[in-house]
């Protein structure tokens, strides 16, 4: 797998954006800014997914993460908003910040070293090169209607999701149900409970 041309450029743009935004998520003073940057990160990751020809996952990422989870985050941030943070009165980091950053840095370095054998061994494969030469990916089919190439990602992911991973799918739905009930129970105050009774 090797990205060429504009895709390579886009990859670098997205990767740098992702990392910067990710760092800003961690360092922002205000939780809302943090959330905003996390949204940017998530959108960047979704675009990377598209680069990887996983449009469906990208769509789900945007729909669920950006449209759902992040709205939830913003809700909660606004519910528990404390003015102290905005007025620079609050310590942002715990006492172990510097040890934590050090350990994280060491971990990053060690990961790079751990990938060294893979880097040594990596060469673009023969079939890939040929496929790229032919101009079409195995995962892409041409559609007559618009004359453009359209990925079949959605169909194949759907097949896999509903045929091979049907049981995990059901379990995941059950998990979601439990999470909904749990979240409602947790977030519901005694006042609301009285209201309902």
């Amino acid at each position, binding site marked *: 797998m090797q990205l060429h041309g504009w895709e390579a450029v886009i990859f670098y743009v997205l990767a740098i954006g992702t990392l910067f935004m990710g760092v800003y998520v*961690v360092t922002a003073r205000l939780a809302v800014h943090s959330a905003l940057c996390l949204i940017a990160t998530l959108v960047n990751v979704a675009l990377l997914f598209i680069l990887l020809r996983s449009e469906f996952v990208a769509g789900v990422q945007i729909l669920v993460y950006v449209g759902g989870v992040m709205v939830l985050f913003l809700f909660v941030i606004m519910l528990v908003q404390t003015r102290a943070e905005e007025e620079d009165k609050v310590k942002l980091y715990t006492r172990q910040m510097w040890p934590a950053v050090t350990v994280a840095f060491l971990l990053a370095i060690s990961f790079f*070293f751990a990938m060294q054998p893979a880097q040594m061994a*990596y060469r673009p494969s023969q079939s890939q090169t040929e496929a790229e030469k032919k101009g079409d990916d195995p995962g892409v089919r041409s559609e007559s209607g618009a004359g453009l190439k359209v990925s079949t990602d959605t169909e194949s992911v759907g097949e896999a999701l509903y045929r091979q991973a049907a049981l995990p799918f059901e379990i995941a739905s059950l998990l979601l149900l439990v999470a909904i009930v749990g979240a409602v129970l947790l977030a519901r105050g005694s006042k609301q409970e009285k209201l309902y009774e």
Partner: protein
Amino acid sequence: MSSLLAFLLLQQDQPFIKRFEPTLVHFLMLSFLLFVVGVAGVLSRRNIIIIFMSIELILNAVNLNLVAFSRYFQINQEVLRAKGLVIDSLMGPVFTIFIIVVAAAEAAVGLGIVIAMFRNRETVAIDEIDMLKW
């Protein structure tokens, strides 16, 4: 950085600009870096909500990793099969979707806990909630 440097230096047979073309390894590096950023956030921030967001970063790093590998396996299907390695490349996106589901569930429940906690303790700072201390 040294790794990246080595990577660029070692591909002597490629034209210079080609050496910068991103491969699986680049995606993995990005994923690791994202992961590490998330870990640093989880370990050092005080605001629970931001810690949750850092966890989302970690999960996204994992997702990126999964999708990148899936793509790699999909493209190199035949080569790998020739080597006797049959991998269903679609399990990557499927698993990614499950991770997103779990992340959504986690966010819902976790934020519910945050709200309950805030209602009781009037704080979202993690180091003020240390009742488990000896």
